[in-house]
């Protein structure tokens, strides 16, 4: 352990208690990676503060020692945003799990960063409210992690990603100072710092509390499963739904390999194994709205070759249809030991063409790819099964991941729709943005964290930041 960090262990233990400081190797090992399993680094120390004050105190000590810091929620992120950095300390929010208040009349809640996404919705249910963003990992992922990544989920088609649902934040900054942005009104009292912070991937500071928006539980919910004979047809159906301005709350596609994995697992949802693709669509609202929307959905799906459309309003039936979608990543574990989940966004009127291109990229590299994605948002998730112990296969996976991003960007798409840039896509930032674009982003990052100690090496290429510094120093 670095001596500057070793000297902090006892003072930190005095501040955070024995359970708040993990220095034994075995205790630190679970934190060496997030969902991007091939990128691993053992943190020098893991800190688990219980609240803002403890987090701020710890950050002050780390600032004095000049130690790099990586924040971590539940570690479910898929882009390596919570991968530790060499010689750095990891600050986790696992012990900040309190729902501090639920303000039903104003439809908001104040929570600690470590509250699990689905637990918040459960806590609000008795008030007839819920928290709308629902990442597939919602049974494990935390609100703080969702804020860092601006996370999405199936129902973000209607409700939008996390940034739409965050009213306020409490942020511990790089030097341990606390920035209270929790009392924002209808409009920010100045610059929209909450909007800027959300999705900054832990590079601006650590959010320790969030004030989130809650939405009423819908009066009626209906889920439909359209069974298609080809993935192309399912994609075309979605493009037509967008073109015809049909507005359900979620539009998802699962392809054949995903269906097989789900149906062969404990999560079997009754998807037909012989289908090439299924379209999972949900609508919510009043009875008339839901009925009309789902009639439109069914008609479009049938026009694009859906031989069968199953519609469910019963909560148990709907839950079963969703269980397959939500458990798809887990079920893919049957196919290979590791899963690389890519995340790109494409224009929705080009879904068929680009899903096909992505599949061909993988097949050309002898890789097994399954597609399960937020089709309504054009948010692709090609899931490549692999074994990280096979170096050649891992290299082909990474090459395919790069090529997928390049093809999507060339088509007017973007690098990431909800997983973040993290470590995984940092090289791709230079494909999507010019040097000048990145320089401006670096300057904004330095305004929050002048010494670039927060999650270094993530989100923005360090080279761009160094170039900015050199240029600015030259000007001075």
């Amino acid at each position, binding site marked *: 352990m670095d001596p500057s960090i070793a000297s902090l262990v006892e003072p930190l233990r005095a501040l955070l208690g024995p359970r708040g400081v993990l220095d034994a190797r075995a205790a630190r090992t679970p934190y060496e990676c997030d969902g991007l399993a091939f990128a691993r680094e053992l943190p020098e120390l893991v800190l688990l503060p219980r609240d803002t004050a403890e987090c701020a105190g710890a950050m002050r000590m780390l600032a004095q020692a000049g130690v790099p810091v990586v924040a971590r929620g539940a570690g479910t992120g898929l882009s390596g945003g919570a991968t530790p950095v060499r010689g750095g300390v990891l600050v986790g929010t696992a012990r900040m799990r309190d729902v501090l208040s639920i303000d039903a*009349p*104003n*439809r908001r809640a104040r929570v600690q960063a470590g509250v699990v996404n689905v637990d918040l919705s459960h806590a609000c249910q008795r008030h007839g409210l819920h928290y709308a963003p629902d990442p597939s990992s919602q049974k494990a992922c935390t609100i703080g992690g969702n804020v860092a990544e*601006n996370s*999405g989920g199936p129902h973000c088609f209607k409700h*939008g*990603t996390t*940034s*739409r649902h965050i009213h306020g934040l409490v942020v511990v900054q790089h030097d341990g100072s*606390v*920035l*209270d942005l929790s*009392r924002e009104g*209808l*409009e*920010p009292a*100045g*610059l*929209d*710092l909450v*909007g*800027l912070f*959300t*999705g900054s991937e832990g590079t601006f500071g650590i959010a320790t509390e969030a004030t989130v928006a809650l939405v009423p539980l819908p*009066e009626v919910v209906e889920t439909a499963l359209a069974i298609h004979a080809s993935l192309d047809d399912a994609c075309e159906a979605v*493009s037509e739904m*967008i*073109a015809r*301005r049909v*507005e359900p709350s979620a539009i998802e596609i699962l392809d054949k390999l995903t269906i097989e994995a789900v149906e062969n697992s404990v999560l079997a949802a009754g998807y037909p194994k012989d289908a090439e693709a299924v379209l999972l669509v949900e609508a919510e609202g*009043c*009875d*008339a*709205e839901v009925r*009309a929307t789902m009639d439109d959905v069914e008609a479009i799906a049938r026009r694009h070759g859906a031989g069968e459309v199953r519609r469910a309003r019963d909560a148990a039936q709907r839950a079963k249809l969703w269980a397959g979608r939500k458990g798809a990543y887990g079920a893919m574990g049957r196919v290979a030991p590791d899963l690389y989940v890519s995340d790109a966004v494409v*224009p*929705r*009127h080009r879904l068929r063409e680009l899903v096909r291109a992505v599949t061909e990229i993988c097949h050309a590299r002898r890789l097994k790819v399954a597609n399960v994605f937020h089709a309504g948002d*054009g*948010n692709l998730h090609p899931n490549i099964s692999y074994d990280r112990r096979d170096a050649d296969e891992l290299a082909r996976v990474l090459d395919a991941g790069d090529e997928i991003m390049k093809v999507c960007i060339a088509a*007017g798409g*973007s690098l*990431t*729709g*909800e*997983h973040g840039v993290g470590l995984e*896509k940092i090289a791709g*930032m230079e494909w*999507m943005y*010019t040097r000048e*674009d990145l320089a*401006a*982003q670096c*300057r*904004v990052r*330095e*305004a*929050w964290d002048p010494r670039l100690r927060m999650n270094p090496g993530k*989100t*923005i290429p360090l080279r761009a930041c160094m170039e900015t510094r050199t240029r600015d120093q030259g000007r001075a």
Partner: protein
Amino acid sequence: MGSSSGTTEAGATLHGRALERPADAREVAALLAEAARGHRRLRPVSGLRAPAAHDLPDAWISLERLRGVVDWHPHEGTITALAGTTLAELEAVAERDGWRVLPQLADPNRSSAGGMVAAGASGLERLRHGPMRHHLLGARLALPDGNVVKSGSRLVKNVTGYDLHRLAAGARGTTGVVVEVSLRLAPLPRAAWTLEFEHAEWAPVDAAAQALLDSRCELDLLRASRSRGLWRLFAFGAGRPQTCARMLALAREAVRAGATSGPADFEDPGSPARAAWREARAAETACGATVELGSLRSECSALVARLVERGFDVACVDPGLARVLLRLEDHEADRLRAALPPGVGARVSSFLPRTCAALAPRRDPARAALEDRLRAALDPRGVLARRDPS
């Protein structure tokens, strides 16, 4: 400065200051860079509205020549336009293919896309559709370092890099000049409904509003306005015809249940509803409000009652948004400040020096320092800085 650019018209002025009219984003950035070198202050102006005649910059940059739709695909539901394009022009393009531009501002012929972003204007139907920043997918910004930079994208979903466009939303041009805007569109509704309710007293109007908000009725707009001693509650919704019929029934039921007295006056769904909505949209600019107060929904009723009791001229109330618009004279500023309970935020939309000073938010020093650093990161020489207290 006008001589530096071949396409800038020489001699035009506004409030006695030069008015630059660059032809494109590159020219905007070049003007900013030149101002940075000369330690001069510039301020963007859409060219469609007269800017306030105080805290004058050294020159204005009119964006009226940056006009036109840059990217539009009717099957995608997004639109990208240059900053000087009016919202009416955007609406004309989008509505042909069944899409609706959000937000819907009071005067689309005089509101530009860039001005809307810079002002953080969220429009009348925020209750259902959210603030402007939720519809803003991305932007291009001209910076005083002479560059035009991109933030966000033209896609409905994207989390790549930092959202500098969110920093520009509502920043009044102090974090860069917005030269291009990408927006998410919503389906153009096929039908609409309205409900109106009038009463001389605030309490029954408030009861009706609360009943509507507590019901399952999906409201695009809920506004109580006061004119000539009479309160008028106006509710508006839009969507499929069958949904509108259901919502109107729910609204009627809610108001009948909630209102303790007073007559109710309903309109049927269809074209009269759109006409009534247009009237409400026009009334937004005509109400003459100078101060906007924001509180929590649960505290809005009591706030309005208190203001009315103390004789303030309440122009409009948006109960669902907990927003109160006041027609305030500058000499009433201190009295208003004394009347406001803690936690109520205020924005002054006209230049009223005493009001601006009295209602200026207490800035958290840590927040203020960060905002200063962020502005300095994008505009180190203060070319776009403002000094007015509003």
